[in-house]
């Protein structure tokens, strides 16, 4: 049905095409039940009884008065219920009464206006004709003509060189505007590199989160869990960024309960183990430790890690076990890292295994 107007072709004038009904079943006129037309108007109480109408009028007025009381009340509440610093209850009262005053002011107007319209305003249904959405043939013809003239008078389709180069120019001009957003990201950081390393180094002491007090091996008793940050974290400019990779959980199990894989025999200290706290799924802190089952639960998407089997995943959407931090003690008995993690911590990313 589309007319692709080639330049100079006259527009066919024909009857407005009736749209195809597709698979709709259109019954012949004789079979169609007739629309009975509008049902009789049921007058309202206010239409019939002037006393009731006046009563409704008063009701509407009272609602508006109630609104005014609400507005004034809200302003009064603002003054009468000040906030006392350090007293959250004063905040609660202020919020409550200011808010209820405002609510009354609003509801008064709203309910009043609606009641007015329902009870008193002219209640007959009115009917308005719909026009077919598409323009009339004359209008469409004129529109086509406008484009034809525009095309002819500019020579747009005829002068292909102008047209093509214009399209090229319009396509390219926004691109610099997009390119300048590149420096939203850091200019000189390789994400791949940054994500691979944390603050942990050989000899970095394990300290308590958040106060940074070092931890002795003897402090960590069976059934304990310590939330750990590397020594010196709190002094760093980028403390939160470092914590987002370096946060560690420290637990003590009986050595016979630990299933240690080859190469990791000296990563724990007499049953004290340290694992990255950052979930390998999408990065929430895996902080829930169950001391009897030795399971770690991540509260975001319920991944579960088994500490007796080197934090392997036993439930939930994570895949990789939590990276283990190899630990030992220094000469004073404080727990220290032996090195950084042996793999990137946190969620997976494309180049993760690619060194």
């Amino acid at each position, binding site marked *: 049905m589309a007319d692709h107007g080639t330049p100079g072709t006259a527009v066919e004038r024909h009857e407005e095409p009736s749209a195809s009904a597709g698979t709709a079943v259109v019954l012949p006129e004789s079979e169609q039940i007739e629309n009975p037309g509008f049902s009789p108007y049921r007058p309202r109480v206010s*239409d019939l009884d002037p006393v009731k109408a006046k009563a409704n009028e008063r009701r509407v007025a009272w609602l508006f008065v109630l609104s005014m009381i609400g507005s004034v009340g809200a302003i009064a509440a603002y003054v009468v219920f000040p906030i006392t*610093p350090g007293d959250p209850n004063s905040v609660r009262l*202020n919020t409550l009464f200011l808010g209820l005053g405002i609510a009354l002011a609003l509801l008064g107007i709203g309910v009043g206006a609606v009641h007015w319209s329902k009870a008193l305003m002219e209640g007959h249904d009115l009917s*308005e*004709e719909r026009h077919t959405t598409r323009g009339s043939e004359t209008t469409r013809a004129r529109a086509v003509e406008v484009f034809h003239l525009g095309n002819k008078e500019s020579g747009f389709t005829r002068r292909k060189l102008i047209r093509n180069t214009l399209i090229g120019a319009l396509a390219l001009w926004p691109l610099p505007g997009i390119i300048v957003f590149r420096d939203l990201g850091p200019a000189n*950081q390789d994400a791949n590199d940054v994500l691979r390393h944390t603050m942990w180094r050989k000899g970095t002491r394990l300290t308590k989160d958040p106060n940074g007090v070092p931890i002795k091996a003897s402090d960590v008793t069976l059934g304990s869990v310590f939330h750990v940050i590397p020594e010196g974290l709190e002094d760093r400019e980028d403390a939160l960024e470092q914590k987002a990779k370096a946060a560690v959980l420290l637990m003590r199990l009986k050595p016979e309960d630990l299933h240690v894989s080859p190469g990791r025999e000296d990563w724990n200290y007499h049953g004290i183990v340290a694992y990255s706290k950052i979930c390998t799924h999408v990065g929430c802190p895996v902080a829930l430790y169950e001391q009897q089952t030795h399971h770690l639960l991540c509260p975001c998407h319920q991944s579960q890690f088994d500490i007796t089997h080197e934090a392997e995943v036993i439930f939930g959407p994570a895949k990789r076990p939590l990276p283990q931090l190899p630990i030992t003690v220094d000469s004073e008995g404080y727990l220290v890292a032996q090195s950084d993690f042996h793999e990137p911590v946190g969620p997976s990313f494309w*180049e993760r295994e690619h060194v």
Partner: protein
Amino acid sequence: MSVDTTAPAAAPSTVETGSDDQLPPGRGMRLTNWAANYIDERTSISGLVKEVGRKIFPDHWSYMLGEVALYSFVVILLSGTFLTFFFQASMAETVYHGSYVPLEGIKMSAAMSSTLHISFDVRGGLLLRQIHHWAALLFVASVTLHMLRIFFTGAFRKPREINWVVGFTLFVLALAEGFTGYSLPDDLLSGNGLRIIAGIVEGIPVVGTWITFLLFGGEFPGTAIVGRLYTLHILLLPAAVVAAIGIHLLLLIINKHTQFAGPGRTEKNVVGVPIMPVFAAKAGGFFFIVFGIIAVIASTVTINPIWNYGPYDPSPISAGTQPDWYIGFADGALRLVPPGWEFLIGPYTVSLNILIPVIVLVLFLVAVALYPFFEAWVTGDRREHHMSDRPRNAPTRTAIGAAGIVFYCALFGAASSDLIATHFGMSIEAVIHICQAVLILGPFVAFFITKRVCIGLQKKDREIALHGFESGRIVRLPGGEYIEVHRQLSDYDRWRLVSYDDYQPLMLRPNARGKITNRARLRANLSRWFFEDRIAPVTRGELEASQHHGGH
């Protein structure tokens, strides 16, 4: 033009309606006249008033859901503007010294600190924060319900397909507005949400880490994200929302509103109330009521108590960490992935446990956006449709909608898995397994049940249209036969039951070249799925035949 629909038999009203036009104009009237004239002479506004002033809007409660969305958005704009005068979108570290004792002396960003200041030191600050957030929740909820209404009444059909897509865009923009908004205070709950987003984006193959670093200005959390979300939240996204609302309403005015079938209502008219004065009063009043309801809730019920969560830190986390409800379906999708969906291609990691939920959600949303075009292709119906379908009269469409709702709710339920577990004394493992089952099987079950229910209701309608209601009176005929007398419907009531579109399955025919294409085969199969089980509306012949049989 508006035509009075009063049937001639109606009693004339006995109350005097406005004899104001007979008195000389009072001072108020004179001022209005002068003002109207002044403006019209400079803006041609009388043309607009003439065109639009008595436009007709059909009256049905479900038609007001779009207004609820619009009004909650206005409330959001008003309350949000207040908040922008106090909020500082900066992640610069500061130490909190304010009214709230449990956070005294704690290091936090200026964003969090200013939000605490608004809540505890600015009179009305907490109220306006709560109004803003409750209005945002209501905004997305009403948009969702409004979309469902449009879907179930088929109001997305020609000529409103574009408006459906605009509306869908509004839905997505609303989700974005909400997410950027609740992440602004930089508290523990929303900060963990951002961490999850960073983790998801990191999992995108090839460009994931680069995009994450771009978004956050480096490593997570960085010091840039709150400021950037603020720009999105108060400038770019609201501008897009306002523009989209403008187009949405413009198309609504041009296409006029749909209406339910009823006596006197046809595809060629709109029956209802005129804008001036009834609709303006109702709609205007409704704005105040919606605002009032939000205000009542915001004065009495806490929302987003950031003072409990404390500032964002990558180490702590709260039990019961969920996003705002409208992002729940995405969180739930992540939770339902079984263990171990990640593999290596050479040295490269493919995290299907992230990619599959993302792809599924995107496909779901795309399916929603494209549904009108799908249905139009299946039915082949190119006529304009201005009547709202009763959902029962489009059984397959309604059943598809029900299946979609079950799918969405299974995802939302999964997002609340730990809360469901504690409240119903179940294990989280059991809850997740149940949600997985509901996600996969539930939509099929819902589809089947809904379609059968719709067809059942149609049968009942047909029964009532032809034979009327059972009146409870038993009559013995002379021949000894007992019948129950049925009360026939009036023509007006019956019209509602018989005036719906009927479709039949597409007949598969070879095309001009004598071939049956795969596309045509697919279309015919879908058409059969849609329309094979159907209850045709009562025809005139059937009606006359049943009436001939004498009322039973």
